[in-house]
């Protein structure tokens, strides 16, 4: 089973897309936060806003580069791994990806140069415009990609001729039933990821004694953004879940590990879903709760996996990913509200809070990955839900070819992730006073350094 080339191709694509999403999850939200920092710098006389911008724009640049190179990989892997997808669904997928490149990717990549290195070369107004365009570009990019992804979950506006998917209505394709929920869920996820990233790094810098006057401001910004985004995200997640129940009931049955269709279904808090015996081992359940959540009635009928024989996703992965995501969401809510309360109550954040927030630095990444695993593994065995199966679109490479390149990719990604976090750590540990403060010492800013 492990040496099945289709399974290997899926692992390879999953590895790549998992690595990729880490960086858009940062750049989408961080672009807007940078715009906020820049704007505060323009409005106030405090120098530290410029320092904050200079610090985080470097992390933005690094994250952006990571996103570009791993995104490039995907544009090729659609063809190398899933040639059948492009042959059969190319009429829908091609234009949506094309619009992403034309309207978003070029915009962000081109103005990034001015945003990063152009401050001395263009007016402050033009620099602000460039930063705004980069932020718009990252969000627009999410718009097109999420539209295509949502269409693969809830296809609409198409017909099939000779086995090829044909376009009936672009409006229905772009604004397919799950798109608004998925887009909002992802955008807020990005803000939440960034909020904890900036708060976590700032808290860590304060603990290490390398923070400056701006560091506390960033911590504050991060906590406030998280405190607003976390409850919003839980609400959006619930709406998205109800939408999934309507369009992909098999996914919801896997998320809740409901094996048989029943009335008054219990909500399983934790368990080990066992596909062999089609039951949950070591289950801790709340009676009637699943029916209550999903149908808003204690004895409402909930569809089980038995309604989708041979066509439902692997249960344990989806079940557990869902619990990781929800658990982290609740934790984010608690920590951010605690942080708000502490910031309101006294002037200095306590060490306990700083420790908690710095532990949560990458919590957004874990939650984003878990969320994507729920939705993507939850779509199996389909690549386009109900229309096209993954196994029917895979390339016929040998297991050896896919396996060896998979090992290469995995080694590369582990190395890059370690380098990324290492660089983040190195930048965070530089004492804040020397950050972007070339003017005070009178010495020129060295090449490519700040």
């Amino acid at each position: 089973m492990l040496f099945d080339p289709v399974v290997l191709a899926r692992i390879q694509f999953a590895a790549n897309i998992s690595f990729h999403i880490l960086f858009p999850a940062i750049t989408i939200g961080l672009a807007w936060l940078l715009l906020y920092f820049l704007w505060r710098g323009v409005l106030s006389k405090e120098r530290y806003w410029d320092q904050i911008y200079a610090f985080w724009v470097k992390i933005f640049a690094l994250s952006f580069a990571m996103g570009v190179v791993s995104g490039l990989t995907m544009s090729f892997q659609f063809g190398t791994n899933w040639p059948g997808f492009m042959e059969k669904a190319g009429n829908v997928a091609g234009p949506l990806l094309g619009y992403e490149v034309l309207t978003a990717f070029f915009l962000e990549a081109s103005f990034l140069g001015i945003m990063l290195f152009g401050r001395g070369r263009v007016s402050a107004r033009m620099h602000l415009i460039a930063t705004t365009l980069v932020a718009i570009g990252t969000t627009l990019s999410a718009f097109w990609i999420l539209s295509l992804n949502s269409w693969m979950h809830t296809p609409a506006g198409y017909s099939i001729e000779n086995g090829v998917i044909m376009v009936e209505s672009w409006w229905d394709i772009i604004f397919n039933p799950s798109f608004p929920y998925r887009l909002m869920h992802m955008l807020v996820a990005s803000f939440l990821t960034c909020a904890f990233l900036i708060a976590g790094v700032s808290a860590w810098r304060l603990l290490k004694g390398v923070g400056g006057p701006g560091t506390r401001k960033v911590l504050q910004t991060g906590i406030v953004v998280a405190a607003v985004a976390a409850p919003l995200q839980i609400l959006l997640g619930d709406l998205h879940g109800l939408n999934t129940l309507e369009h992909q009931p098999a996914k919801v049955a896997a998320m809740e590990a409901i094996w048989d269709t029943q009335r008054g279904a219990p909500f399983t808090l934790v368990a080990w879903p066992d596909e062999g015996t089609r039951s949950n081992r070591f289950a801790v359940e709340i009676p009637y709760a699943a029916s209550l959540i999903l149908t808003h009635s204690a004895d409402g009928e909930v569809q089980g996996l038995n309604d989708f024989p041979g066509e439902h996703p692997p249960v344990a992965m989806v079940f557990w990913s869902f619990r990781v995501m929800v658990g982290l969401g609740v934790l984010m809510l608690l920590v951010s509200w605690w942080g708000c309360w502490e910031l309101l109550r006294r002037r200095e954040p306590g060490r306990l809070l700083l420790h908690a927030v710095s532990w949560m630095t990458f919590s957004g990444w874990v939650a984003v990955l878990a969320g994507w695993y729920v939705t993507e593994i939850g779509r199996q065995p389909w690549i386009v839900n109900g229309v096209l199966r993954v196994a029917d679109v895979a390339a016929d490479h040998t297991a050896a070819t896919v396996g060896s390149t998979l090992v290469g990719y995995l080694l590369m990604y582990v190395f890059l992730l370690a380098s990324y976090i290492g660089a983040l750590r190195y930048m965070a540990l530089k004492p804040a006073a020397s950050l972007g403060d070339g003017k005070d010492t009178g010495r020129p800013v060295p090449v490519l350094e700040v």
Partner: protein
Amino acid sequence: MEYWLPVIYMAVMGLALFIYVILDGYDLGVGMLLPFAEDADKDIMVASIGPFWDANETWIVLGIGVLLIAFPTAHGIILSHLYLPVTIMIMGLILRGVAFDLRVKAGDHRKRLWNRAFFIGSLVASTAQGWMLGAWVTGLQGGLIGLLFGVLIAIALPALYLLLGCGWLVMKTEGPLQSLAVRWARVAIWPMGLGLLLISISTPLVSTVIADKWFSLPNAVLLSPIPIASALCFFWILHVVHGDKLLESRHGWTMFAATVGICVAATLGLAYSVFPEVVIGQLTIWEAASSVDSLLFTLVGVVITLPVILFYTVYVYRVFHGKATGLSYE
């Protein structure tokens, strides 16, 4: 409509890939030259391409994107045939891309490591692209001729990138580094010229279809500007890199321009040779094309956005016009 839409897309794809070869070509060329420079000069070299590379790399995504949008069947066939070189190229581009940032952000003790990664990534990506181009031109057939052709292009294309990189450095740098770039160009021009010549001679020998296209009358006369222009550009580069005038005068840009001229001629020649096939010997652009509806839907976007993209690309180049003095986030 059914005739012209695929032709238009072929042209857009050709344009995107051509722009990619020029723009990322000089990036990759500079990357391959990195180990031959002093440490201080390395920073200037990277600074000379720093503001541009993200956008430069986007052109290959557009090129592959158009292949995917307009000719999905061909996209699947080509990319699954080129699985190995594509994977290798991607790894090279990843390494090169992240090295841009990490060489200055991961700390001074890591700088040597990332300079090396920058070089290796550029070299690997360039060579893999040559391999891909060679495999595509020979119809993805493999075999001995395919292999030889692949090797030939896998040498010629990186050499072309090197020359573009030298031309770029002549424009963007000054002093000893600029003179060094001229000396590098004296070396790089030979494998490029020889490779191009061998490719031009052997293509019609290998393919009778292509031979007929070029050597029947009146085509031979009408097409003669293409080889003549490449030869003129070649000898111009040879002339300027061996004279002393290049650095003293304000004509440093002509070396880059002449290299671009060679690319234009080669692209036109190649396009003429293979048209109308997208997978050579297997699929024409009309057989591989998407439905008219999908092509029209995207064409609207292309017509509106492509001029805007070209406009702001020119704007960004103007903002960073002049000698590279080093980059800062200030």
